[in-house]
């Protein structure tokens, strides 16, 4: 891991005592951790342990009940956050009535374009060459997921928050996700991914965050 030491640069993402209560029931306890450029962190947890909820809090969609989220050392506000963060949730944010190409064009309009790549190239590198103009509705579950992965490639966000990126993908697809994560880490990005643990990021040993471990700062 090529993390600079903490006093050199602020971490890309830092959680401090992050807690979320739903109807006053704790979903996850006080969590503290840091992510530096080049980190890929895997978050494992059983069904219902709060992984999805944590990602929503980190992205700013939900407000934490306690604690703060810092991006590049500054507290998260919706306006600052979004240039830095790409969220891939259970719902992919893709229109079934439009083609993959139209969907990607919209994503670029909304989030900007990374230099040196085009939508066509991105679709090709996720294995959807030839499907550029088919309505997404007619793709299978796994093919839809690939369209969402192509969006990650195009939009210039440094931090990826991926909720079960491996679900619904075949073996090729799993390898693809791992390739994308490696590339992203090499370029100085960081990623936080959730998984049930049966698939995982396989390059090196990824750092892990455990949702049940609330005592000390983890993986710092």
């Amino acid at each position, binding site marked *: 891991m090529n993390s600079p030491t903490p006093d050199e640069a602020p971490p890309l993402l830092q959680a401090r005592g992050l807690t979320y209560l*739903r*109807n*006053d*029931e704790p979903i996850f306890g006080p969590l503290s951790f840091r992510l530096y450029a080049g980190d890929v962190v895997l978050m494992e947890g059983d069904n219902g342990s709060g992984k999805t909820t944590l990602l929503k809090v980190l992205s700013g969609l939900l407000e934490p009940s306690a604690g703060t989220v810092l991006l590049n050392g500054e507290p998260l506000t919706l306006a600052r956050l979004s240039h830095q963060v790409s969220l891939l949730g259970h719902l992919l944010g893709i229109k079934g009535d439009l083609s993959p190409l139209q969907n990607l064009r919209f994503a670029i309009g909304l989030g900007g374009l990374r230099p040196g790549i085009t939508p066509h190239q991105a679709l090709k590198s996720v294995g959807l060459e030839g499907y550029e103009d088919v309505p997404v509705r007619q793709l299978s579950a796994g093919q839809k997921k690939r369209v969402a992965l192509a969006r990650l490639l195009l939009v210039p966000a440094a931090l990826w928050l991926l909720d079960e990126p491996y679900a619904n993908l075949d073996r090729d697809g799993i390898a693809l996700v791992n390739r994308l994560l490696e590339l992203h880490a090499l370029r100085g990005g960081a990623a936080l991914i959730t998984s049930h643990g049966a698939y995982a990021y396989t390059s090196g040993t990824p750092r892990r965050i455990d949702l049940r471990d609330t005592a000390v700062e983890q993986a710092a």
Partner: protein
Amino acid sequence: MNPLLLWFHKLGSPPYFYRLAGRLLPWLWGLALIGLVAGLYGGLVLAPADYQQSDAFRIIYVHVPSAWMSMFIYAFMAANGFVALVWRIKLSETLAMAAAPIGAAFTAICLATGSIWGKPMWGTWWTWDARLTSELVLLFLYLGVIGLYHAIEDRRQASRAAAFLALIGIVNLPIVHFSVKWWNTLHQGSTVKLFGPSLIDGRMLWPLLVMALATKLLFAASLLSRARVDLLELEAGKEWARQVALAGERT
């Protein structure tokens, strides 16, 4: 922090409020009851019959106070909603949502007594004039707030959404109040003097004022009662709520 702000902060903490409300409640209920009895006795028995309407006018002692309350409570709810949205104070959320059903009830009473009164006065239960209509819209706004609150699972999110709606609906309040001025309506203008300066003497006026005060106390009492229950439910996981529940079991 200056002392006033500090007190405000303290009041906003659920356990403190719960205890304070608990101490106030018997007084409020008692005073409200005395006021209601006195006002109704004054209005229904002591006040002289109106020379135009004979005894039919006595319904004014229910109609007008509840009409005033329907607007007052809406304003109260919207103000609390504003505080809840801006400062995220749990107590305000609770108060706003506890006020809504009470306000809806007063609105319904106003509408019911109004149409009962309308039958002898205007010869019809209902007409579509501006005051009546805007009061009906007020009822629907209350129902919308209540409906929205109950349609959302997460209690705090629900109260914020409903508070927001209450704020939007506040444009209706001036319409209710000034409708008699802006449009020429069947409904009376907004002075009790319409009964004739000679007749609205003290014996007719004071029960009305007493009723107005008593309904405010009634509102305060039932608001605090409801808010206490709601707070206990909202904070069910907290230590103080558990203690309250335990104490309740022991007695």
